[in-house]
């Protein structure tokens, strides 16, 4: 490279290269690529050329927005805050920690029946599940049933890695802070009948299929779960060890769906997590008919200390998931704005077409 004065230049075809051979010129190839003449589309952004884009955006977005909006509006959703910070709230009594277990009941009325499957969520606010150190504080290998990780969890779980020299299963801050309120739903069929009808809440099918079947696994081995989790201890905050989360074996231990759902850390400090499914049982009756319900809460989870809030949400779903008024409005708004801008451009294009040409002349 650096050898400009070298004899090799001659070898490489420097100035005194032999003119005898075939006339090998250094003439560059006349190809479209090398000459930068590739066929090209050269859009020019002016009011005139751009305004169709705005109109098209407007015309596409507004119908989509309306569609989403309507769909979202058709979704039934009811949200009940049971944090109990208001003195009038039935759960207010549970704020002090001396009442254990504290059970409170909240009445609510469904104005309209909920058709189709109904999802029951618990919602938390001001809960930073996305905090960096919180998010890291877990051991996926342990949760995947790795026996080594079970007894020797990752360092990331500190300080919830060991308790009294026993490895914690599941380790880490996420598992330790698992939501542990119990929510039950009862329908008051009619005023005359005082015995409320409990609503069947499915505990299974609330987690991602892949989570339940691939990502989370109980430790391998024969015997009961308890044996398999031998040598580990429960997370500090938990009342029961992990193998006692549920009565059914396929929903117990690490593959307990409540745990799985909790372990999927929420993106934002205000979030909800799927708690139970209310499946539609028959086509004749709505899943949740209109009427009076009461919510029975076993209040364990302390959120008031950090100004958090707890909610219970019942929601039907549509093709686009849960209720989401924002997207529809956003589409309509953006579509309208785009349309408006298009009109502005149209005016400009009309008004300034001539003057832009004089600008041409002025500039040149």
């Amino acid at each position, binding site marked *: 490279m*650096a050898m400009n004065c070298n004899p090799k230049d001659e070898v490489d075809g420097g100035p005194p290269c032999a003119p005898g051979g075939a006339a090998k010129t250094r*003439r560059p190839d006349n190809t479209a690529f090398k000459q930068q003449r590739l066929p090209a589309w050269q859009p020019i952004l002016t*009011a005139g050329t751009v305004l169709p884009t705005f109109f098209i955006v407007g015309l596409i977005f507004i119908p989509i927005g309306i569609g989403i909006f309507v769909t979202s509006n058709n979704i039934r959703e009811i949200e009940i805050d049971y944090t109990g910070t208001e003195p009038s709230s039935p759960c207010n009594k549970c704020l002090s920690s001396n009442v254990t277990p504290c059970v409170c009941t909240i009445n609510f009325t469904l104005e309209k029946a909920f058709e189709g499957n109904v999802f029951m969520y618990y919602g938390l606010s001001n809960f*930073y599940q996305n905090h960096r150190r919180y998010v890291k504080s877990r051991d996926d290998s342990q949760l*995947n049933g790795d026996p080594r990780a079970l007894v020797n969890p990752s360092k990331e779980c500190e300080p919830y890695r060991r308790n009294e020299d026993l490895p914690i299963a599941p380790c880490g801050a996420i598992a330790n802070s698992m939501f542990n309120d119990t929510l039950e739903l009862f329908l008051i069929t009619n005023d005359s009948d005082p015995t409320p009808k409990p609503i069947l809440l499915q505990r299974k099918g609330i987690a991602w299929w*892949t989570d339940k079947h691939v990502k989370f696994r109980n430790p391998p081995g024969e015997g009961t779960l308890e044996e398999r989790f031998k040598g580990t201890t429960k997370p500090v905050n938990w009342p029961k060890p992990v193998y006692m989360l549920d009565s059914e074996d396929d929903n117990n231990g690490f593959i307990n769906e409540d745990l799985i759902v909790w372990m999927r850390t929420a993106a*934002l400090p205000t979030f909800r997590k799927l708690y139970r499914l209310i499946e539609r049982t028959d086509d004749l009756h709505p899943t949740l008919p209109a009427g009076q319900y009461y919510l029975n809460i076993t209040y364990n989870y302390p959120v008031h200390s950090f100004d958090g809030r707890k909610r219970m949400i019942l929601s039907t779903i549509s093709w686009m998931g849960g209720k989401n008024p924002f997207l529809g409005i956003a589409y309509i708004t953006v579509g309208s704005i785009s349309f408006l801008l298009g009109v502005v451009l149209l005016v*400009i294009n009309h008004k300034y077409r001539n003057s832009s040409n004089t600008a041409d002349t002025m500039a040149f």
Partner: protein
Amino acid sequence: MEPAGRRRRRRRRRGDGGARTVRSGLHPGLPALGSRGARLGLHGGCAPPAADNRLKTTKYTLLSFVPKNLFEQFHRLANVYFVLIALLNFAPAVNAFQPGLALAPVLFILAVTALKDLWEDYSRHRSDLAINHRGCLVFSREEKKYVHRFWKEIHVGDFVRLHCNEIIPADVLLLSSSDPDGLCHIETANLDGETNLKRRQVVRGFSELVSEFNPLTFTSIIECEKPNNDLSRFRGCIIHSNGEKAGLHKENLLLRGCTIRNTEAVVGIVIYAGHETKALLNNSGPRYKRSQLERQMNCDVLWCVLLLICMSLFSAVGHGLWVRRYQEKKALFDVPEADGSSLSPVTAAVYSFLTMIIVLQVLIPISLYVSIEIVKVCQVYFINQDLDLYDEETDSQLQCRALNITEDLGQIQYIFSDKTGTLTENKMVFRRCTVSGVEYSHDANAQRLARYQEADSEEEEVVPKRGSWSQRGSIGSHQGVRMMHRTQSTKSHRRTGSRAEAKRASMLSRHTAFSSPMEKDITPDPKLLEKVSECDKGLAISRHQEQPLAHLSPELSDIFDFFIALTICNTVVVTSPDQPRQKVRVRFELKSPVKTIEDFLRRFTPSRLTSVCSSTGSLATNKSNHKSGSSLLSNLSNDSVFLKLEERLGQPAPSLASNGYSSQAESWASERKPEPGQEQELRYEAESPDEAALVYAARAYNCALVDRLPDQVSVELPHLGRLTFELLHTLGFDSIRKRMSVVIRHPLTDEINVYTKGADSVVMDLLLPCSSEDARGRHQKRIRSKTQSFLNLYAVEGLRTLCIAKRVLSKEEYACWLQGHLEAESSLDNREELLFQSALRLETNLHLLGATGIEDRLQDGVPETISKLRQAGLQIWVLTGDKQETAINIAHACKLLDHDEEIITLNAESQEACAALLEQCLQYVQSRGPHSTPKKTEGNVSVGFFPLCSAPPQSTARGPSLSLVIDGRSLAYALEKNLEDKFLFLAKQCRSVLCCRSTPLQKSMVVKLVRSKLKAMTLAIGDGANDVSMIQVADVGVGISGQEGMQAVMASDFAVPKFRYLERLLIVHGHWCYSRLANMVLYFFYKNTMFVGLLFWFQFYCGFSASAMIDQWYLIFFNLLFSSLPQLVTGVLDKDVSADTLLLEPQLYKSGQKMEEYRPRAFWLNMVDAAFQSLVCFFIPYMAYYDSDVDMFTWGTPITAIALLTFLLHLGIETKTWTWLNWVACGFSILLFLTVALIYNSACATCYPPSNPYWTMQTLLGDPVFYLICLITPVTALLPRLFFRALQGSLFPTQLQLGRQLAKKCRKTLQTPKERFAQGHLPQELKAELSQGGTGSPSESLSKDCALQTSQHLQQPPVCSPEASGEPSTVDTSVPLRENSPRGSPGSSIPGAAVSGECPGHLRRKSLSTSRAAPLQSLFSLPNFSSLGCVSSLSLVSGLGSVLRFSSSSLHVDKRDSEFLSSSPQPEQDLSGLQRQATGYV
């Protein structure tokens, strides 16, 4: 006037007092280093082992590669930064990513660079290997003969034997040559690109050796300088075993890399080998400059760093507060330290700060530097590949030597140009001369030159007639007096204009510099020719009388001397192609140059014979005996020899060579084949084109140089026969003396004559003062004043002038001078100084013979290029060493100066005068500036101005057009500290600045001044060694790879074949490179800021904990993989404005000068837009997923996708040209992202904590909301930008946008059916537009059909216009056809071509006026006119027609000539000659 080829920079390198001693490598007995014999020792110092001849240019070895390369890479601050950040990641408290993963991009970048370095190093290694293994004959002590060795085995002190056409392996001291005179010719093209042969001489003391040089007997010690890089100097001495000392100089040294030519074989001793050779010491490798854009970019990178720190600090504070708030509240999500203790808010804040820096590191774009480098390499590739920058004549394209300042080409504000060889062709053509006060105008010669010009332009348009060798009638030339050596082949070369022939000619001139047929065939002036032959005849008759010259009239004798001087006062080497020189030579008298006083006495005493016989020179006895014998012979039988000569011309030497020589010749003759004595054309190889021109001119007058040896010059005259002048001394040209002289002994008069040739200003001062008393003196005076006036006339015509003078020395004077001169020559220390003084002593009291005017033709397209560059807003300064008048004239010719502009001339004799003048000029400029009311200059300021044409400059928007002409001396004053500001201020007001008589140093000082004071981007262009300093100082240095060697090219960043390529290089490629890179850099900043913005907004929702919702993989590889390709493609290929439009509208270049695309405002606007877009891209997903069960990475992945889409769409808005590559790149980016995401998300369920991305992407693809937000977010994010762009494009379009719109309109019209063009109809749209615009301002319509901007000052309104207005559409549309159709006001100006029928007079005048400088071709052979849509074929056709009509007469002549020549078999012969030549070099 400086003969251009000799403008060598005088490098004086003092200080390395060390010397090197070299002994023969064959004598083991001597103090030796190493086993193979003594090499060298240093005087008074311990000797480092001398290098062998092995070449090693590699930087690394296998072992040292990794550490050394890493070390070098860490010189780049960015790399250190990224590595530090990656290392930071290893600290658990602050880590944001998996540590290994974080290292990946840095390692990737480092690895790519390392691989590149490795590859480069490997190719260097391979070429080293090839060179090291070249073979060469080296004398071996063991075998007592020359054996083949590799180059790398050569050591200092070895004897090497080289044959013709071999490349010299090391710096070798020439000890012996097959040439009887101890000469050796080398070609230094590899070293400096000069193709003429240089003569080297055997060391004195060895040249006289009779038998073949035997290395075994070499016992001398050579002392010389330490290795240095000064090619033009070598000093030392050789100490023979008997204690004798002889000086060595550069004529004795053969430099590595040169090629032996015309010499059978030489032997030498290696002085410097390997890396100590001058060639390698001169090799400084490619240059690294930092472009302005990059500097600005670095500044913005610093802003980004600041921004990064601010964001991190903000986060840190936020996190501290957050921790304090939630810690005491025992929040469930607050994770204590590992030991269970809680983190104090301050510590948490510090940790957060560091982690934030890691997370946000993307803000400092790691891939930016790599991408920029890739883009630049591609840009360089495309510039190299541009067909329009390829010069067919020289078969060379543009070379980019500096890889990283391409974008600077788009921002140039000042161009500093050399004149000779840059604006002009540096092909010197003898134009006219004056002898003894009589002017010979050489009209026929002028016509001949004009014809070349015509031929040039015709050949462009008319179908090239390859093979039809037409000869132009030599009107006015005297066939009978053609030179005897003028072969048919030169005749057939007469029409050089045609491309094919030019190519052939240039192939020829590869071997023979400066000898295109145009320069060779000079049509003599009949009057002068008559006089020359008269004195030739007269002398032939009176040659045997005592004073032959006295019989001639003074005028005739002056003429005779004049031509003798032209012929011999030079260093031209006569060669005949391909064969060693002595074949051509006829040797009469052999004398070495006068070397000693004894020698002188011996030769110049009357009893020459006896003294020679009694001389006892040990070595030379034999030879001088012979010599004197032969000289005796020639003295005795002059006549008979001359008669014989006629017959023997072709088959010379052997028969005449006497015994002493034949023995030597035989010893060399092993592989020499006797060649038939065929008549060969003599070639003149000159160091400078001026010299060649003069020799060819003399030859046209039948005074032909036929041979040149170091001691004699032979001149052939028709009647007088061959005259052999004994060459006593040659005092070479230097730029301080500005002249050269030869000292000869005249064969006819036996007098010692000094012939001096030099710049008129110098020579005129050295003339013998003549008294006005006697008649002779008065006559002389008259002659001088006449000559001076002719000289002025020549200068005004733009000719280069040289004065020829002579001095007759008496023997006493000569002896006296010789004494001093010999002392000077033999002095070791101060040789150059003393020789200079000695020359000054000789060159006085001259007798003026005459003067010559040499034309240096303008290169093709120079005026057009200059006017384009002007339109592009470039200020052009011409810095030349020429005299003022010549410079002004050339400046007029190339349209640098206009006749209607005022010229301020600064010629000051002293500092004070200069200051006063400057002051006055400034006052004047200021007084006329603001009011723009031109005052009559004569009245106001009289001292410094002479308006050449005091027509009031039109008060246009451009302001008053002023030009500044300053000469070297005033420039020196003006560049003083106290005046430079004023000078600059004045120069800034002027449209063009012309510095005459400037030295190389001044040139560079001017450039430096402008660069530092005006903070302007400067470009220096030049072709010669005297431009090197200027080229190096300027921001961009451009070298012209022309006639004068490669020194300028070696120093340059870009090398172009011709000046006119500068136009495309700057206006097209410069603009593109700048605009592409500027946009890419802006885009990079935007991209990174926007991406980092997303993360930053998230901090508000994660407690400022430096958490990232975007998966670490995406975060790390996003820049490197997903979003890098499209921007690279755009950065490489995007064309904001097409080349044609750029060339058509050079004003567009100004956007680069003003840094319109990448200025701080653009940067900050970009950042604001990035912030906005990131807000949109963050909050739309935020709102869409607010209070939902989405998890962090299922939410982050759509954001990543959105970001990618937004980037691509943004790039789409910014991309001006969409080729399929752009589409593919964008598609590839999206696909790559999807593929990577899908694979990554299904690869491992438990890996990559903490993100756990398992099956995320797959789930998302099943979620309609994902698609919905992917649709709305990018659109929303980009709506404002698109709207703004559209508004701006409509309301306040920039020049560039206008240019694009214009080009688009042109294209549209082109797309309309072609037949309409053919029929001469106007495209409908165009017509409509015309009629629409016709009612309004006429200039409106002009702009619509992409007419050019008119440069109003250029021309007066044309003569006839009524016809034009009669058919307005036709005329109007034909306007844009022409490249720079000047029109004062629309409608009144008609291009000459279009209305030629109505207005022939006007056309002719125009054409004629342009024909000299601007060949007709420029009128219609627009290289791009096919793509310039608006060109209606109507005007095209009429243009063609008129041109055809115009040139029909010349065509006619042409045809006749071709018939005349068609029977000639010459072309074939010529071709075969060429082939033979070619094979000779293979």
